[in-house]
């Protein structure tokens, strides 16, 4: 009897903890494009899925690509999405429907720069519905994280208490419950329902910050491992895998030509080894979009929306 009382007290205490945690999550965790992307892949059927980094997020407009290819695609790319995340997002998507093709947007910087805990670190995981894939993802990624990132999803938003009124307002809107992307519009960018981020043209000095240059000696152990897993998974599910690198401004290419040439050599060899089609738009002689920095929001490689739509048309030619 005494043990039962004790256990009930513990259950009650844990319930209170969960409730408080839930309240903090509701108040502090804002609406996000990752939430919408994960919802879409779990509930819709796509022929093509784009996975990759923020370069892909800003460069690939699925509506434009689909207009040329006649297929249905979704842009699952986001800033901070490492191959490990892409792999599990794809696995999660395949629970509902197996796509015909996956296009992995390869940013060489993600192969040499370790993943760090930040607001997007666990976001894809948090928004996945419970499943074995989510459990696998948890052991693959979340267990490495600080226990606060794992157990308190609001941890990385703890300083943004000023956003609580806006968060509460957003979450009461129907657009939130319907997973609409419209409320996520900001002065500098708009996200479409298909996962494309349209960066609005702007004047002013462009940043060179956040640029991570290729260095083969710094290739992280786990990234090629997850690439291998991705290839194997696609083969098992008979999914065509295409790898592409979106263009960076030609000024950046010129300034760091050595790094980009080395990266191209490395990945061209790797893709040949795997027998995978590799589209490196930094080396391919294609036109139809602006290659100079005037077509980008920064020197790192995030395209303005208009330029991205032109690029998407060009990309579609290769994906017909």
């Amino acid at each position, binding site marked *: 009897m005494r043990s039962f009382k004790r256990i009930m007290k513990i259950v009650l*205490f844990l319930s*209170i*903890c969960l409730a408080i945690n839930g309240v903090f999550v509701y108040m502090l965790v804002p609406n996000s494009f990752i939430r919408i992307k994960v919802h879409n892949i779990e509930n819709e059927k796509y022929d093509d899925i784009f996975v990759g980094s923020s370069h892909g997020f800003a460069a690939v407009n699925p509506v434009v690509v689909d207009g040329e290819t006649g297929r249905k695609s979704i842009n699952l790319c986001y800033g901070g999405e490492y191959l490990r995340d892409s792999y599990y997002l794809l696995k999660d998507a395949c629970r509902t429907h197996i796509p015909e093709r996956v296009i992995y947007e390869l940013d060489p910087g993600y192969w040499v720069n370790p993943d760090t*805990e930040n607001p997007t670190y666990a976001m894809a995981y948090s928004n996945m519905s419970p499943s074995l894939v989510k459990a696998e993802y948890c052991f693959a990624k979340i*267990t490495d994280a*600080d226990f*606060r990132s*794992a*157990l308190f999803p609001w941890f*990385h938003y703890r300083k943004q208490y000023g956003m609580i009124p806006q968060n509460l307002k957003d979450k009461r809107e129907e657009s939130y419950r319907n997973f609409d992307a419209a409320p996520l519009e900001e002065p500098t960018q708009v996200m479409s329902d298909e996962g494309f981020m349209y960066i609005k043209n702007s004047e002013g000095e462009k940043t060179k910050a956040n640029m991570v240059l290729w260095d083969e000696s710094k290739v992280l152990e786990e990234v090629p491992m997850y690439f291998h897993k991705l290839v194997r998974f696609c083969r098992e599910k008979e999914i065509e895998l295409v790898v592409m690198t979106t263009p960076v401004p030609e000024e950046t290419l010129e300034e760091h030509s050595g790094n980009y040439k080395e990266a191209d050599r490395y990945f061209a060899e790797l893709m040949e080894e795997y027998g995978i089609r590799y589209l490196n738009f930094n080396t391919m002689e294609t036109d139809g979009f602006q290659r100079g920095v005037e077509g980008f929001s920064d020197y790192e490689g995030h395209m303005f929306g208009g330029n991205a739509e032109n690029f998407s048309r060009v990309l579609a030619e290769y994906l017909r």
Partner: protein
Amino acid sequence: MSLTSFEFVIFVGAAVAGYYLIPKRFQWVWLLAFSYIYYAAASLKILFFLLFSTATTYLAGLLMDRIKEKQADREQRIKQKRRVVAAALVLNFGMLAVVKYTNFAIENINALLGSHLSFQTIILPLGISFYTFQSMGYLLDVYWEKVEAERNPFRFALFVSFFPQILQGPIGRFNRLAHQLYESHDFDWGRMERAFILILWGFFKKMVIADNAAGFVDEVFGNYGSYGGAAIVVAVLGYSVQLYGDFSGGMDVVRGIAELFGISLDENFRRPYFAVSITDFWHRWHITLGTWMKDYVFYPLSLSKMMGRFSKAAKKRFGKSIGRTLPICLANIIVFLLVGVWHGADWKFILYGLYNGLIIAFSGLMMQNYRKWKNLCHINEKAPLWKGFQIARTFLLVNISWYFDRAAGVGEAFDMMRITLTSFRLSDFWNGSLMLESVDLVALRFVIVGFGCILLFLVSLLQERGVKIREAITGRHVLIKYAVYLFLIFVLPALGQPPSAGGGFIYAQF
């Protein structure tokens, strides 16, 4: 596996659950398995060092016991045992010296001789300083026949590798720790509750206090040339808070985890900033290192024939009083030089140790004079004002030592001291210049650290007065208990800094 990782939480959960579910006679085996899994998870290569240390110490202990049993002649027995213990000490401390100090030696040889020896890439095995000291302490206890050698190699392996303490201590003693590891333990709700409080309190000190202070400290120490004396003083004070929060917080987490298994590890901190002298400080700070040095270096050194001869010569030269004190002073200086060396392969740590040793030695020499002066000035040693003065004086002396401990090097430490004295402006405290622009620093972080320090101070004050905090909490009404637990749980994500800001535990690098 970092102590703050989710992986570690799952690991401990599995370890504790299994510990109480399996038959009691296998509990120690379970602990051994988890200890080796924990260490191997870091890297299989470094496992070699742990196994080497364990094997050599175990065999040396057995050999000495055998000599004790077989050798009737006392002198021969001591001689043979001495050879065994010397060999084991040389092997183990030699291994520690090689992995920790090779590049330091190369750097200094190059500087001294103008040579160009190249630096070596040497793996630094996790926790090597701690488990080497722990196992060598055991070996010396066997040598001095304070304990019997452990016959079971697996039990001995558990003593060396017990996972909560292997990375950053405390340095355990065989006669206090071993039997607890090998005994079976029943599940106890009360003990689990108290253990969780200690773990959460440890994380509070680390994540809320230490990690919030780290940003300012790292920025100023890393770019001290851009700051005035006031910023440097605040950074040094911040470091005193950061180091204490980090190290003692880590110890609380480690001790709390051990308590989950019913094992009581030695206390490593006892409110050090309430110390009334540097000697008292070292009785309260990193206690197990201090007592290790006292028992295995200071006493043997002070009672050695060499010191005896030195004492005789000193009495002849300086008189009985000083002659009696000088050997103790010398022994203290040597001990603290070793403490400095233990901290790391850098001249700044040696200076740090020397600084502490010289103060303690000087205090020892001046003891009689201090007594005379206090009597002359009619100072009431029991008066709170006098105690307050002693605490403040000790705090100042300790903070001076942090210049050496935290600065990048000896030159940087002296540079920072010079700036502190020559560019100190009181107005910097209120004109906003401490709100550094180069770091994501807002007044809130200062407020959080301040709040944490006030809470820490209140808890420490109660403990200093003999209040058992955890028992006091668990004995309260359930609503009060729950409020405390909820506070400790939610304050960690609410006010703590993310892992990249504060980094891992500072002493885990030893």
